């Protein structure tokens, strides 16, 4: 069976599993579930697994997508359950299906973030954060393929809003997933570079949903 796609969650302690380690973890989980993955041909065969948008270490997600191929026909309806049963704590497969859409069609990612403020007023922070991210351009010094460079992250933010909570601000944002890729961590990094007074004491993010260019849910 070719062109299969898996949708899974990576939360809790599993957020610290790196992309490379996750590939091996998935490969082993398939093996434990008795599902034979197809391997590449050639001198050094490897299982044909690919994760659409590698997740940074430390970030959670409830909308990860992974393409794979199986050697044998399998009932996709029960596959999520079979895999989840043999995965580490925090990784849960929610869906397995034949993929219809190319990975390049994935354009936007909805993310949730927590900005912790240990001593500052969350209400005030939320208001000022809205103001900060409403600017027309937010130029951040970041690592690019060609070394360090300034880049404007604002066009990659389609939507962003902030809600104050006890000791923290919860944000919801829709960010560009590909071309360009905006790592949500850059939202906090922008504050550290440009507006120290708003820089959170700690930030963490969770991916919520994937969308195409027309903001239709992408699967």
């Amino acid at each position, binding site marked *: 069976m070719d062109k299969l796609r898996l949708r899974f969650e990576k939360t809790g302690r599993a957020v*610290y599993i790196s992309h490379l380690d996750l590939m091996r973890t998935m490969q082993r989980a398939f093996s434990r579930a008795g599902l034979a993955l197809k391997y590449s041909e050639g001198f050094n065969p490897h299982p044909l697994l690919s994760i659409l948008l590698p997740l940074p270490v*430390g970030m959670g997600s409830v909308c990860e997508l992974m393409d794979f191929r199986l050697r044998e026909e399998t009932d996709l309806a029960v596959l999520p359950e079979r895999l989840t049963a043999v995965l*580490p*704590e*925090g990784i849960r497969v929610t869906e397995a299906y034949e993929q219809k859409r190319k990975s390049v069609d994935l354009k936007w990612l909805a993310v949730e973030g927590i900005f912790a403020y240990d001593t500052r007023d969350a209400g005030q922070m939320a208001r000022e954060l809205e103001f900060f991210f409403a600017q027309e351009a937010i130029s951040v010094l970041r690592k690019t393929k060609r070394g360090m460079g300034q880049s404007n992250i604002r066009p990659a933010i389609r939507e962003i809003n902030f809600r104050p909570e006890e000791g923290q601000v919860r944000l919801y944002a829709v960010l560009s997933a590909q071309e360009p890729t905006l790592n949500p961590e850059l939202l906090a990094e922008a504050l550290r570079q440009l507006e120290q007074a708003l820089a959170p004491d700690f930030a963490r993010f969770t991916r919520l949903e994937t969308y195409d260019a027309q903001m239709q849910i992408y699967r």
Partner: protein
Amino acid sequence: MDKRLERILPKVQKPARYVGGEYNQIIKDKSAVELRLAFCFPDTYEIGMSNLGMSILYHVMNSLDFVWCERVFAPWGDMYTEMKKAGLPLYALESGDSLSEFDALAFSVGYEMAYTTVLDMLDMAGLPLRSADRPALPPLVFAGGTAAVNPEPMAPFMDLFVIGEGEEMNNELLCLLRQAKREGWSKRDFLRQAAQIQGVYVPSLYEPVYGADGALLSVQRQEGAPERVTKRIVQDFDAAPYPVKPIVPSTEVVHDRVSLELFRGCVRGCRFCQAGYVYRPIRAKKPETLIRQGIEALKNTGCEDVTLLSLSSSDYRHLGELCDGLLDYCESRSIGLSLPSLRADNFSMELMEKLQKVRKSGLTFAVEGGSQRLRDAINKNVTEEDLLHTCRIAFEGGWNSVKLYYMLGLPTETDEDILGIAEMANQVLHCWRQYARNKNRGVKITISTSCFIPKPHSPFQWEAQVSIEEYLRRVNLLRSAITARNVTYNWHDAETSLIEAVLSRGDRRVADVIEEVWRRGGRLDAWSDYFSFGRWTEAFKVCGLDPAFYANREIPADAVLPWDIIDVGVRKEHLLREREKCYVSQLSPDCRKQCAACGAARLLKEGRCDG
């Protein structure tokens, strides 16, 4: 998750090793267990998770439903610094709970260089280092592992030691600890009772007496304490618990594969080798047991590799049958089978072909000595002919990388023996030129030398280690003798070997040095990244002890040894006999040719030594 921990993790390398949550970890309801045990490995996650003994005992102790045994490893330097900064105490991986909530801390100590890390973990757990400064029970702090065959250097820090194999002993101890906790025993009462369990050594019941020259004169023991502590063994090894559902690390560790233990003990009796003596008597598993356990563990882990463990795998009687059985399962699933410790003398073409079917790796031989005379003296029963014959088969079979391991500073070693190492490398190179199937790929011959360390309970336990200067002179002699471009020479650092020798043969006074090194920032001393020789020499000075007394002195054969209290089965007379044979370069036949009546078999209640 602890908020402090959550904030630290993004700052450290490979955070996955600090959070637990792996597949097959054991989670219990902490309110439903009576004892919480922190199973501490005094090294990093990557090393500890590669340790089969740790995995076996984790499952053995968790098989008691009133116990929840969790894992604790030593954090790497970056994590250590962040934890200190955040005031985060050491915690266990499964629950994330701080070690202060635990009833017992059990340390698995396989090598002496981990001693400072043991102290550091105690400190990170918020506990006083010395047993005498921890009057309350719980917590109980104890240690086991190979290094415990000479428990004295760590004696003041531990409430007790478990000597030998822990499969049965640990759970007996935990049952007693449960009773003590239920009935509110004092620590002193508990320790007196615990000392009655075979294999348990309670150092506070013994008091060493030293002579004016600094040598150990005698040991005074309190009433009720056994005269000697006899190590425990698993009587029926074939039926011994084996973890068929081991934890699968979610991040890369050193040995990330299924490990099958073929047998315990060794039939060879190399005279420098502690493991060859302290793991006796020889007990093997049946091939069908191993095949069954291997397949089950592969299914439960999804691992891509399985490896066979023992002190000398080619001495396993059913190796062919075992490999065939495993390969039947592995080949169709692209699972690799590897065999780490082969001897050059009975390495067969057939076996090599079998392993080659799946994956081909380099060949490694522990030759140990550079001349036949020296190899005979240390009872390393390998001839140059064997080695070259094996290399020929290997080169014809397409291998092109050979590693040869040697020791420098062995008793009776001469410069001639050392030059013999270089000569042997040339012979191997010549062999390659003659027989290699494909010379275009070149050949890589690696010579590695380490410094001989006299180890307790081995026939060389009385021998002196050569000084650092002398070791380096021998290294340079060999270095200048190796001229071929294809031969690489690596040598092990001499300073670590000196400290390891001191800790191996140390008495109770060495504990002060270990503590002083830790106070000066020593931890993770098994890593060259952290080992500081200067810190150790300073600590010796401060404590008024001379490392040479422990490492570079030949101990009189009739001296009282700090580890005499421990009976590993093999009798001292046997060790002395073997040592005498060294001086006349006389080989001892392996146990299967002729039983040397070493004494270990008396530990077996029934059944016989498989030697």
